[in-house]
């Protein structure tokens, strides 16, 4: 089961062992990681599960849909090239050691 590293808005690192198939967003909620709001519960509507992905690992992720791309323009914090909505990122063995930085505001 892959380990995912969450860096929360106060810069604290949390390494969590997650099951394949759940989303990075759900992993954060389930393990009480601060800063993920996920107002729409993972339905790609609210843009409040915003994370910055470690740039060197960005290409390991599945491609972004047009919907996610449009929604990322709605994020409260700065949109950067490594911005993703964590409800659209599914945990898999390819993501072992993935580091995500939770956005400072949602």
């Amino acid at each position: 089961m892959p380990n995912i590293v969450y860096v929360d808005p106060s810069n604290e690192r949390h390494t969590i062992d997650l099951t394949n198939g759940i989303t990075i967003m759900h992993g954060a909620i389930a393990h009480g990681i601060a800063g993920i709001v996920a107002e729409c519960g993972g339905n790609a509507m609210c843009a409040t599960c915003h994370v910055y992905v470690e740039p060197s690992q960005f290409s390991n992720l599945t491609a972004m849909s047009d919907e996610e791309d449009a929604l990322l323009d709605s994020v409260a914090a700065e949109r950067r090239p490594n911005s993703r909505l964590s409800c659209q990122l599914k945990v898999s063995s390819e993501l072992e050691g993935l580091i995500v930085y939770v956005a400072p505001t949602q």
Partner: protein
Amino acid sequence: MTYAGKVAHEGEDAVMTDSTIDADPFGRASRSDGQLNEKNFRGAPICDGDPFSLETMEDPFPLQREVREAGPVVWMSKYQCWAVAGFQEVKAVLGNWQTYCSSRGIGLTDFAKEKPWRVPSPLLEGDPPDHTQLRAVLNRVLSPSAVKKLRDQFATVAHEMVGDLVARGRIDAVNDLAEAFPLRVLPDVFGIARGGEKHLLPFGSLVFNSFGPDNELRRAAFTGAAEHIAWFSQQSQRENLAPDSFGAEFYASADRGEIPAEHASMLVRAMVAAGLDTTVNAIAAAVECFARFPCEWDKLRADPALARTAFEETVRYASPFQVFFRTTTRPTEIGDVHLAEGEKVMMFLGAANRDPRHWEDPDRFDISRRVSGHVGFGNGIHMCAGQFLSRLEGEVLLTELAKRVERFEICGTPTRKYNNSLRGLESLPVKLLASA
């Protein structure tokens, strides 16, 4: 026409009768007390209860608990359909449009077998691919960033309205606040002319009643509906909508060829029908909750930034939208039970929102709980398109009330509105005690 009755106990003190529910939903035993009978239907427990009776609406919690605790899926004998009431199960059904479709109707009527009461809405009663582009336009027009821009205008109305109500002291929190606020702000958002308020709530209530069985409530809702439907059809036409409104944006989208022109007016009607009664019920429920649980009101007054999550908790706790349906498109399984193609599945959203498997102390109204992921706004591709509008209304109102009101005191007997899929109050006599 509304049915009203006295409000019964909300079930928040009820104790789970089976506290040894194990974590495996497949291991849950059938129970034969209450409205479950000894037999089973294709291996599923049978429930003879009626979610659509006035008695159940008075106090839905016992039936919700029975259906939820009996097993992952239950057969409702009275309506010859399946029912799911557990959080996991309801979420799973809503998340799987391929197996549980909307195009055969989201009420008890199966459109493949019986004529729908109106031409099916390609939005509400559509599946991909027909649904997809329409929904994409809606999501864009009602996006979080678009809705955020409405904050100031909502706040101005809230400030004025709450000021008046606090000055009056004794009010009916339904008529004077919960209905008044959405009726005042929502038509403007969509560009609908003011002055037609008497049509707005009955139209929504009709749509929600139509999801139920052909009972007295449903028939009564249709009586006198013609004038509301006619008014709406007219008001949602391009020439009657204000420019710079969401309604005008739907037409702009049609002009760009993104959606068929006739769908623009349908989207206006759909949003207003779906967005009023539901939010009205949530706002009234919030006042009722804060009146009954003043410690939670004190929490909010001490930290008004909790207003948005407080409204969210209200939606979970009160679940204004209680029950609706999907239809199976193919044989499938829930737990060990086989469902055939073409069978209706009733989803108890309110019950799912109080499932102890998912929520800690589910019957407790707690504005600091982690509430995201509830199914009060649904789930999946049809999840409430207006959720950000609803949240903004709730957040802005609660923020203003938290500044001005020290305490809500229920000062008369609340009465209930009855509807086949909505749950809410008809009247809530309340005294607003002003903050110093």
